[in-house]
């Protein structure tokens, strides 16, 4: 069995499971409702319909919120990933199978990511609506979405790791939310210190700092590197946690 084939087999099953449960539809509905309402309000509030103005008054705050809400939603999506399977004893079925630990992790990772993309799919309408009023900075739109995707991948990696260390879904959700909040709040603690080194470090470690680069349309290499390292580290820790069954 090839590496990607193994991922694909598990991915298919996981995606199917997600879409069979009402949770995804409830969360998607809730998410679309909140974001749609925000979009409508920003739209009504903005008077000048110039491209620069629309980016400033609608797109940037909207994406900030789209990202922020996932701080709460991502833990709800990932809480069951390993915790539930542990509880039911099905995790051993996967671990004993021909799948490697990485195939299991990526299969589940991509499946949850697919669900989050489904959840934000309604928002693809917004740039189109803006387009009707003459908006044309598509580069920024793409950059914003890219940033959002990177953030989502980071949140999901954290959630998967936490889910792999417990068999209690509630604990998994609360713990991953706390960790995500911690990374989010780091950016605020930046002001609490005068040491520039510590400040820079905190700033660099916090997720919003890097997301900002995307939203301003100024993507730097280190922003992308940060997200890769962040997700990579938590996926690696997930693998370690799966391995710990041998201890």
């Amino acid at each position, binding site marked *: 069995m090839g590496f990607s084939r193994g991922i694909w*087999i598990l991915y298919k*099953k996981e995606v199917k499971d997600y879409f069979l449960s009402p949770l995804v539809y409830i969360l998607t509905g809730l998410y679309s409702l909140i974001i749609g309402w925000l979009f409508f309000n920003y739209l009504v509030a903005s008077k000048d319909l110039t491209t620069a103005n629309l980016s400033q008054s609608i797109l940037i705050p909207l994406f900030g919120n789209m990202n922020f809400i996932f701080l709460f939603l991502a833990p709800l999506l990932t809480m069951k990933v390993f915790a539930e399977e542990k509880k039911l004893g099905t995790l*051993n079925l996967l671990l004993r199978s021909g799948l490697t630990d990485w195939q299991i992790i990526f299969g589940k990772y991509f499946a949850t990511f697919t669900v989050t993309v489904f959840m934000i799919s309604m928002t693809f309408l917004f740039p189109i609506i803006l387009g009707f009023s003459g908006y044309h900075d598509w580069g920024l739109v793409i950059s914003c979405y890219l940033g959002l995707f990177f953030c989502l991948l980071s949140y999901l990696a954290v959630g998967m790791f936490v889910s792999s260390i417990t068999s209690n879904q509630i604990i998994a959700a609360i713990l991953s939310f706390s960790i995500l909040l911690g990374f989010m709040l780091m950016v605020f603690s930046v002001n609490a210190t005068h040491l520039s080194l510590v400040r820079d470090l905190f700033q660099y470690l916090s997720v919003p700092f890097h997301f900002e680069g995307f939203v301003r349309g100024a993507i730097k290499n280190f922003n992308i590197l940060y997200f890769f390292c962040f997700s990579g580290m938590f996926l690696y820790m997930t693998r370690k946690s799966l391995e710990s069954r*041998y201890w």
Partner: protein
Amino acid sequence: MKVIELKNIVKTYPGVEALKGISFAVEKGSIHGFLGPNGAGKTTSMSIIAGLSSPTSGQVFINGKELGREKSPIGFLPETPPLYEQMKVFDYLKFVAEINNVARSELSCRVLEIGKKCGLTKVMQRLIGNLSKGYRQRVGIAQALVFDPEIVILDEPTVGLDPNSIMEIRELITSLKKDHTIMFSTHQLHEANLICSHITIINHGIILQSGPIGEIGKSLKNRQVIRAVVRDWQIIEPAMVLSEIKDLFPCDNVEIKKLDGQTELKFIAETDDDLRPSVSAYLLQKNCGLLSFTEEGMDLEEIFKRVAGQ
């Protein structure tokens, strides 16, 4: 040939020594019963063999190769079957076959074949979550067989099922003997007696006996039970009989039971010598009208009581 061999396996959980250095082997092509009361260490041993947990010390060999971190080609049914409730039986079995490297072209036909073998044909398109306990257990067994492993390990496959399902699952296990080596655990001696060719008896993390079922019975033959039915018998006190025969042959216990007009006598002795000549000589000398005279073989129930008591 030994397909599974355990050498001096110790497993300690915090505060509990679940396995205290157990060693035994499972022969190729056998149905190996793993027998012991609850908490004896059956599940612990089986999950070590299945590669789900590692022993604190000791070695496991599968087909002569030491079990390491690589995955072992063993079909395994844990105590609670690992089922995805929201999947249909067919999809579930297909998924298990797929992740266990069954070729894509063979998938469907393999699943149907195993389904038939395990009596699941009727429920193939039903959700697992809606099945009865007996069917779920069968799906659990099918899951362990679907990628055609040489060795199949079943942890208490009949526990908690209704009598009909139990019978059917026992038949199923017996029918697997042709193609697989099977090890299954049970706390029912009667069950092991019915379907096993070999047994290993475990209690408190120690192996009490292991080997072919016949030999285990024989190795415990040092206890003889001789049953005689006689017509005329006056003595009803076992102690009096015992004192009479004290000098004739060694005997630990005598049981006397009055049956309508006849008397049943049981002579029980802990000895390797054959007592039959002595007992029959004694009875003849009493001139009591001997009607029948047999040596009772011990069944597993008795073996277990004795072994556990040792």
